[in-house]
């Protein structure tokens, strides 16, 4: 094997560290939703509207 391309002894651990870091940095769909300010405003608005329109019985 060409010594120039021989992997270092900690090659696998370095690659795996990068893989873990990439996976950890990925957002789930719910995180992506919550991260958007417009979605948060919609949550507030929708929740408020639901609270107002939740009807009590009047006999």
């Amino acid at each position, binding site marked *: 094997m060409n010594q120039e391309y021989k992997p270092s002894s900690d090659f696998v*651990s370095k690659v795996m560290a990068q893989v873990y870091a990439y996976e*950890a940095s990925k957002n789930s769909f719910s995180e992506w939703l919550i991260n958007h300010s417009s979605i948060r405003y919609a949550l507030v608005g929708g929740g408020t509207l639901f609270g107002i329109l939740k009807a*009590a019985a009047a*006999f």
Partner: protein
Amino acid sequence: MGDSTDTLVISHNSIKTKSEYRELIEAILWAVLLAMIIRTCIVQSFKIPSGSMEDTLLVGDYLLVNKFIYGIRIPFTDLRLPMFRAPEHGDVVVFKYPEDRSKDFIKRVIGVPGDEIEIRDKQVYVNGTPYRNPHEVHKDLRVLSRGSNPRDNFGPVRVTADSYFVMGDNRDNSYDSRYWGFVSKPDLVGKAFIKFWSWSKDTWPWQARWKRIGRLIE
């Protein structure tokens, strides 16, 4: 090197997760707070489960009630802010049922403080003058005698101060002031003003009554 990268990734994630939860909780708290303020002070929705206000309000109607017109009620107290106007003859009002304040009733104001109310053979008299609301209906042709039931012959009674005499538009099928007396001013919840939704639950699947939606309550 590898250890420091792991530490950085873990700490970054914990900060981000904490922030997201905080944002979500803040959004929920804002929604609850806004809804509570609006329901208490401005407008509240009600649904109709009984036919006592037919044909003005049908079972399955959803309506909005103006909470500030008769004075905003301060929560957990009997105090009220000043009213924009007092209830008038013909107003459709929501109020706490005097015999069980956990229940809300909706009826039409027939008598205001000082009025003399009498019913003779289904005809309502206010201060001796026949009072006929265009929305009232009679679905039972029988006239019940005064002794057996107050439905068709009642009074005369004078409405006391800070009280109101209310009746359902479905005069022959309404449990109202004829049976349990006056509504006191502190028990008023608000004035019904618009129908925002209406279901007909007679058939499955339920049908929306589109023509009723958005109609003002007169």
